[in-house]
């Protein structure tokens, strides 16, 4: 076990040098290779936000939109029906038994079906139709729900990305998590509250007329400026979909922050028509079920642009413009988990972590030197090499270093010497019975090998399971622990063994062998 071929020795040094090279990439001002250990959000500060979309309102809304096409289909084909009712997740109606088959055939027509979309990827229809006696029930099929959910999630991710890009955060991460969740990571943001507000808003904008009487087809909404209760017509004049741009501005006269919006051609036409017909009435500008302003229409607006003023602060007008530009989320989104760390706490954590790493390291080094003298020195050199290799590998992997990750490095320092301790203790035992010193070292290394591997594999198992199940910072711990085990094995069985062999083979008098 003590003999090394020249090639082996060379490769050990080569690996070591390249590890030091990669580790050095983390120093400032290097433009050689763009690889670095990333700092986790808990160290550099930032926000981790997990969002979940709520598709229930969307299902209901989509079902509502099927009402007219279904009725049209029934009328056109002269199928009599009654008791047409719509509940949050299904539509029910009464149809005579003899007409049911005809309806069914029309409902599941493959081509030119305006009611029930065929989803080619699943080879299924989006709606289900069931009969029970005279009653027919229509609801979304499982595949319809999945496709609805997926489309909504993709759109939401897109819109969230637009909003975050617009805020101007550096290196944001936006990822899909599972089938209903979106993970947003924002390193180093200074105003997490503002971003959270921007993310959580559906931003469904509608322009609707304020009606004088509260009859059917209108609803009561609150004007957020002064808590006035308004009766607003349910019919939407134009919606956020018709917007092509929105910018924050200052009003020329009052110098108040406002938002100027530009409509597309269709929106401009409709807006012009409605404002011409309703001069003198009030127009409610509704954002997510609350009226942000309800100005009186003084004259027809036909230019396709307009302004919204609602007693905003400049920040509010900027955010509103941003939300309108990025578009409305297809479904409401809720924050289900948030972790935010301020930048100063992150720096404090790094300082404390690094300081305790150094102290722990020094303690271990002193202890090993006192205990094993020259071989303690060997073990210490291999420990330092071990640290360099760990940092080098973490750099190659571009791993994320978290606070528990630093703890993992410190723990590796403590546990890394274990392999060397195991070996040296074994050699000590061998020295009791074995006369030839070189033989004692040889068998010592050999016999300890199995134990060292067994012992490290068990810790590696724990690290792998942690990596699979852990989230965020804990994952960082698993990475450093796992990498640490591998580098420890290498440094004990190659670096330390090589150095030991150099000492043993050159020390003919045996003056160092007081382990």
């Amino acid at each position, binding site marked *: 076990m003590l003999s090394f071929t020249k090639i082996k020795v060379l490769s050990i040094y080569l690996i070591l040098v390249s590890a030091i090279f990669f580790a050095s990439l983390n120093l400032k001002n290097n433009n050689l290779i763009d690889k670095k250990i990333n700092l986790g959000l808990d160290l550099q500060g930032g926000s981790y936000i997990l969002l979940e979309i709520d598709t229930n309102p969307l299902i209901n809304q989509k079902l509502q939109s099927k009402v007219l096409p279904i009725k049209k289909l029934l009328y056109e084909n002269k199928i009599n029906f009654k008791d047409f009712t719509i509940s949050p997740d299904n539509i029910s109606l009464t149809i005579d038994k003899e007409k049911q088959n005809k309806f069914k055939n029309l409902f599941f027509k493959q081509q030119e079906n305006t009611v029930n979309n065929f989803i080619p990827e699943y080879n299924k229809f989006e709606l289900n139709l069931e009969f029970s006696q005279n009653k027919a029930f229509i609801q979304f099929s499982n595949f319809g729900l999945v496709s609805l959910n997926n489309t909504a999630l993709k759109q939401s991710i897109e819109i969230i990305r637009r909003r975050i890009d617009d805020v101007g955060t550096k290196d944001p991460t936006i990822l899909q998590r599972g089938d209903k969740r979106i993970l947003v990571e924002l390193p180093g943001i200074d105003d997490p509250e503002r971003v959270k507000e921007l993310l959580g808003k559906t931003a469904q904008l509608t322009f609707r007329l304020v009606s004088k009487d509260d009859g059917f087809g209108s609803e009561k909404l609150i004007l957020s400026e002064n808590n006035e209760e308004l009766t607003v017509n349910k019919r939407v004049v134009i919606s956020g979909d018709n917007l092509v741009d929105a910018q924050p501005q200052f009003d020329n006269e009052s110098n108040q922050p406002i938002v100027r919006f530009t409509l597309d051609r269709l929106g401009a036409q409709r807006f012009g028509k409605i404002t011409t017909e309703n001069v003198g009435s009030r127009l409610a500008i509704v954002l997510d079920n609350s009226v942000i302003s309800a100005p009186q229409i003084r004259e027809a607006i036909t230019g396709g642009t307009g302004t919204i003023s609602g007693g905003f602060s400049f920040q509010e007008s900027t955010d509103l413009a941003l939300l309108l530009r990025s578009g409305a989320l297809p479904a409401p989104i809720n924050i289900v988990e948030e972790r935010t760390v301020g930048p100063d706490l992150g720096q404090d954590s790094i300082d404390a972590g690094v300081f305790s790493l150094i102290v722990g390291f020094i303690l271990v080094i002193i202890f090993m030197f006192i205990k094993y003298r020259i071989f303690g020195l060997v073990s210490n050199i291999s420990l330092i090499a071990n640290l360099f290799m760990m940092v080098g590998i973490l750099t190659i992997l571009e791993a994320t270093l978290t606070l528990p990750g630093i703890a993992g490095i410190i723990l590796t320092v403590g546990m890394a010497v274990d392999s060397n301790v195991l070996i040296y203790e074994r050699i000590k035992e061998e020295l009791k019975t074995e006369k030839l010193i070189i033989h004692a070292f040889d068998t010592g290394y050999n016999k300890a090998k199995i134990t060292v591997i067994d012992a490290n594999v068990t*810790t590696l198992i724990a690290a792998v399971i942690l990596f699979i199940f852990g989230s965020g910072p804990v994952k960082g711990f698993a990475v450093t622990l796992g990498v640490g085990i591998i580098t420890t094995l290498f440094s004990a069985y190659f670096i330390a063994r090589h150095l030991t062999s150099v000492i043993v083979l050159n020390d003919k008098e045996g003056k160092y062998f007081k382990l």
Partner: protein
Amino acid sequence: MNNKINFSKIFKVANIFSLLAVLVSILFLFFKGLNYGVDFKGGTLLEIRIENKNIQIQDIRSSLNLPELGDVNVKQFGKEGDFLIKFEKNANENEKFTTDLKNIISKKIGSAVNFRRVESVGPKVSSELLKQGLTAIVLSLAAMLFYIWIRFEWQFSLGAIMALIHDVIITLGIFSILSFEVNLSIVAAVLTIVGYSMNDTVVIFDRIRENLLKYSKISTNEISDISINETLSRTVITSLTTLFALVSIFILGGEILRGFSFAMILGVLIGTYSSIFVASPVLNYFKVTQKTLSKEEI
């Protein structure tokens, strides 16, 4: 190691002690339960720093006397002026919540407040995280069991797993007794403890197996005695160096790592004890001899 310690003599006493410790832990876990942090219980955790260092903890408590927060818990956290606040309400239900709360606190205590850390976990996510954590612990136990079963005989596997379960239950039991907060990083600590304790056990088992092959005429008790003694200096040295590292994190690593390192220190101590006093006696009870080892190992 010239001064041999007669471990097998104290096995019986140690086992009764372990059994009692496990029983007490189970009783505590059952009746008192664990003090789950926001990760597993849901709710909000705030780490705040207050500019005016004269402000006392009572002032903050009274400033948070708001019914909508639910159960509020405030404690000093690290340096003067740093506090940790926990309450049941999930801050994510309303996007403006954190901003509003910051204003309320700073107005009531009359000093600027800096939110250094906000962690808010909804009920659905927290129950998922708890399930994930438990699955991870159970899975790692199973994986260890499997590994030992492949490498050794089933008696060894049983001994190892009993030691691990012993470690996990007593560690959690101590958490329960001390009302120590259990969060995601504690799960990581427990998993590392499992790995560490296993590591210790494997070293002793390896030696027992080796000695079983070496001496055929000695009783199992003596074999484990010899093996434990032979590996004892290694066991002590490794525990010491690991504890050096852990104690330095515990003292110097900052408040956030304190719970994690405390759990690890506890685990290293219990794990070292269990490798000697739980895992090895199991082999004695099953009268493991040279014949127990399969042919391929001989």
